[in-house]
C-alpha cells in the first residue's frame, strides 16, 4: 500500500493544474480526428522539459488517459474514430447519435471509461511492484532478450506483415546505433553533421508519428472534408449512470477484457475495444440490437479501451517493454528525464513513479467530469478543417523538435524520418516497431556489450546468452510471438 504515501504530490497546485490541463487538452486532442493518443503524447513531450520528471509524467499520463476517452467524441458524433482504440465505439455510438441520443452516448462512454480506467489503474498499482520484485532476478543477458522481445512482439503484432514489422524494428535498432559508440567513442554511420549526436528520441517520435499524419491530410486533397455535425441534445447525467449500472454485464466484460489485453505487450486498445464489443454482443440477450444504437455496445467498447491504459504500463514500468505504441512514447518520455524503467524503478524513483500512477487514478475521475461537460465543445473542435489541422501539427512538430536541444539538426532528422515513414507506411511498414527499435536499441546494445564482457571472462557468449531457465524462456517467447504471428498471417492468407 506504498502508493497511498505519495498521493500528496498529486494534490499540489502545480500537479493539479497539469492534471487538469492535460486532461482537458487530451480530451480535445483525442476528439480531433487524425490526432492519435500516440501522436498527442509525442507532441507533448517537448513541453515536459521545463518540468520536473514527476510533473512531466503527470502531464503525459493525463494526456494518454484522456485522449483515448476523447476519441469517443468524434467516433460518436462524426463516425470518425478519434483514435484506433475507438473504432468499436463508432458501431453503436454513431447509431445512437443519429437517433438523437448523442449526449447520452457521450455520457455512457465517459462513465464506462471511468470504471474501466479505474480498474485498469488499480491493476497497475497492485501488479507492478510484484512484477518489479520478480524482475530483480534479471541480469544483462535477460535484459538484452527482453529488449529484443519488446521489438519482436510489437513488430509481429502491430504490423499487417510479420516480415515488414520485424524489418521496421531492425531499421529502428540500426537508427539507434547512429552516432558515437558509448564504449569506445567511435563514430558510427554519421553520414551527415546533423547525426553527430545520434538520433534524438523526441524529434524522431514527433517525425515518425506526426509528419505521416500531416502528409496523409495533404494526400486527401482540398475537397475531402468530413461529415456534418450532429446536434447534441441534453441528457441527464444521473440517468446515464443508472444506465451504466443497469448494463453491468457489458461494463464487466469490457473492463476485464481491456485489462487482460492491456497486459499483453504489443496488443493495442483497438483490439481491446473490438474484442470486448464482440464478447458483449455474444453474451447479451439483446444481440440483435447491437449495431443499431445499443448502449451496451458503447459501454463495453469504451470500458475496454480505457481499462487497457493502466495495464499497458505494467510491462513498461517493470520490464521496459511497452504494452502499446503510446506506452512506447511514454518510455521515451521517461528516458529523457533520466528514468530507466525496469527492475529497480520502484526502489530508485518511488517519488516519481507513485505520484505518476496515482495521478492516473485521479485523472480518470477528471476525465469523466470534464468529458461529460465539454463533450459538446469537443464536438466542435472535432470539426476543425484538415487544412488547419495539418498546418498546426506541422508548426508544432517544427517548434517542438527544435525545442528539445535547440538544434536544427533535430528538425532535419524529424522531417526526414517523418517523410520516410509516410512512404514506408504506404508499403505496409508501421511506425510502432520502428520507434520501439529506436528506444530499446540502446538498452539491447548496452546489455549485450556488458553481457559479452562477462561472458568472455566466464564460459563464453553462447552459454551466457543461450542457457539458463530465464534466457530460454525469453527466447522461447520471442520465437513463439514471431511464429504465432507468422502462422496467423499464413492461415489468414496474408502474404508474409
Amino acid at each position, binding site marked *: 500500500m506504498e502508493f497511498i504515501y505519495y498521493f500528496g504530490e498529486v494534490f499540489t497546485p502545480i500537479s493539479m493544474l497539469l492534471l487538469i490541463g492535460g486532461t482537458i487538452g487530451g480530451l480535445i486532442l483525442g476528439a480531433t480526428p487524425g490526432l492519435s493518443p500516440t501522436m498527442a503524447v509525442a507532441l507533448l513531450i517537448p*513541453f515536459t*522539459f*521545463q518540468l520536473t520528471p514527476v510533473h512531466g509524467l503527470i502531464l503525459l499520463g493525463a494526456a494518454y488517459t484522456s485522449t483515448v476517452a476523447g476519441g469517443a467524441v468524434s467516433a460518436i458524433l462524426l463516425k470518425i474514430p478519434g483514435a484506433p482504440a475507438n473504432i468499436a465505439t463508432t458501431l453503436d455510438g454513431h447509431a445512437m447519435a443519429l437517433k438523437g441520443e448523442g449526449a447520452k452516448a457521450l455520457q455512457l462512454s465517459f462513465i464506462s471509461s471511468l470504471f474501466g480506467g479505474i480498474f485498469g489503474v488499480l491493476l497497475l498499482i497492485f501488479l507492478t511492484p510484484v512484477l518489479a520484485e520478480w524482475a530483480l532476478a534479471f541480469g544483462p543477458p535477460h535484459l538484452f532478450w527482453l529488449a529484443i522481445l519488446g521489438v519482436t512482439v510489437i513488430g509481429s503484432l502491430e504490423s*499487417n506483415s510479420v*516480415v*515488414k514489422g*520485424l*524489418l521496421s524494428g*531492425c*531499421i529502428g535498432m*540500426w537508427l539507434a*546505433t547512429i552516432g558515437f*559508440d558509448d*564504449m*569506445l567513442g*567511435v563514430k*558510427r*554511420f554519421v553520414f551527415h553533421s546533423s547525426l553527430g549526436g545520434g538520433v534524438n528520441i523526441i524529434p524522431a517520435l514527433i517525425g515518425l508519428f506526426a509528419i505521416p499524419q*500531416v*502528409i496523409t*491530410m*495533404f*494526400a*486527401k*486533397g*482540398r*475537397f475531402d*472534408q468530413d461529415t456534418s455535425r450532429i446536434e447534441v441534445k441534453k441528457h441527464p447525467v444521473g440517468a446515464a449512470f443508472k444506465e451504466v449500472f443497469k448494463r453491468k454485464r457489458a461494463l464487466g466484460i469490457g473492463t476485464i477484457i481491456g485489462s487482460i489485453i492491456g497486459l499483453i505487450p504489443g496488443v493495442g486498445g483497438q483490439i481491446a475495444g473490438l474484442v470486448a464489443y464482440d464478447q458483449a454482443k455474444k453474451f447479451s440477450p439483446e444481440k440483435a440490437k447491437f449495431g443499431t444504437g445499443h448502449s451496451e455496445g458503447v459501454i463495453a467498447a469504451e470500458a475496454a479501451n480505457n481499462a487497457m491504459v493502466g495495464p499497458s504500463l505494467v510491462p513498461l514500468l517493470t520490464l521496459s517493454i511497452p504494452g502499446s505504441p503510446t506506452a512506447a512514447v511514454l518510455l521515451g518520455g521517461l528516458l529523457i528525464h533520466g528514468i530507466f524503467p525496469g527492475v529497480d524503478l520502484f526502489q530508485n524513483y518511488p517519488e516519481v513513479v507513485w505520484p505518476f500512477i496515482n495521478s492516473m487514478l485521479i485523472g480518470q475521475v477528471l476525465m469523466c467530469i470534464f468529458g461529460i461537460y465539454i463533450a459538446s465543445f469537443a464536438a466542435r473542435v472535432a470539426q476543425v*478543417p*484538415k*487544412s*488547419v489541422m*495539418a*498546418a*498546426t501539427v*506541422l*508548426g*508544432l512538430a*517544427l*517548434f517542438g523538435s*527544435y*525545442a528539445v536541444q*535547440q538544434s*536544427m539538426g533535430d528538425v*532535419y532528422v524529424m*522531417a526526414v524520418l517523418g517523410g520516410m515513414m509516410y*512512404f514506408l*507506411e*504506404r*508499403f*505496409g*511498414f508501421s511506425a510502432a516497431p520502428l520507434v520501439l527499435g529506436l528506444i530499446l*536499441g540502446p538498452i*539491447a*546494445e548496452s546489455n*549485450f*556489450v556488458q553481457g559479452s564482457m562477462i561472458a568472455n571472462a566466464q564460459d563464453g557468449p553462447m552459454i551466457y546468452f543461450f542457457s539458463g531457465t530465464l534466457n530460454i524462456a525469453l527466447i522461447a517467447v520471442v520465437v513463439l510471438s514471431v511464429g504465432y504471428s507468422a502462422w496467423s498471417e499464413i492461415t489468414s492468407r*496474408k*502474404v*508474409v
Partner: protein
Amino acid sequence: MNYLQHRISSGIICAVAIWVCWISFTQKPAEAFLFPRIIAVFFLLLALWTFAKAMLGRSKVGNGLSMAAAKNLAPGVAITGIYIFWAAKTLGFYTASIFAFFILLSLYDPSPNTEFRIWMKRGLITAAFIAIMYALFAVVLKVYTPRGMFI
C-alpha cells in the same frame, strides 16, 4: 496494388541494408561495430526477403501511392520542405511559420478563393496560430529560435 512501387521501395530498403552491412563489417575498430553487425545481418536478411517477394509480385501489404494522392500531396510536401530546410533558418522560425501556415491553409482549404471574407478568415487563423506559438515557445518555454532575416 502497384507492384512497380513495391519493387522500387523494397529495392531502396535492400540497398540501405547492404550499405549498413558493408559499413558494419568493414569499419574499425570491430568491437564498436559488434552490435550493429548483428542488427545489420537481420536487417539484410529481412530486406532481401521483402525484395524477393516484391520481385515475385507477392507483396500484398500496403497499397502504395496513387497518382491522385501524389498530386494532392506534392504542393504540401514542397511547401513543407522549403519551410523546414530553408525558410525556418533563413527567414526566422516565426516569419517562416506565418508564410507556411497561410500557404498550406490556402492550398488545402476547400472554401472558394474568390471571396475576400475567406482570405480574411485565413489571415486571422494564421495570426492566432502564430500568437499561440509565440506565447508558448518564446514566452512560456523561453526557447530561443533561429532569427534569420526576421524573427
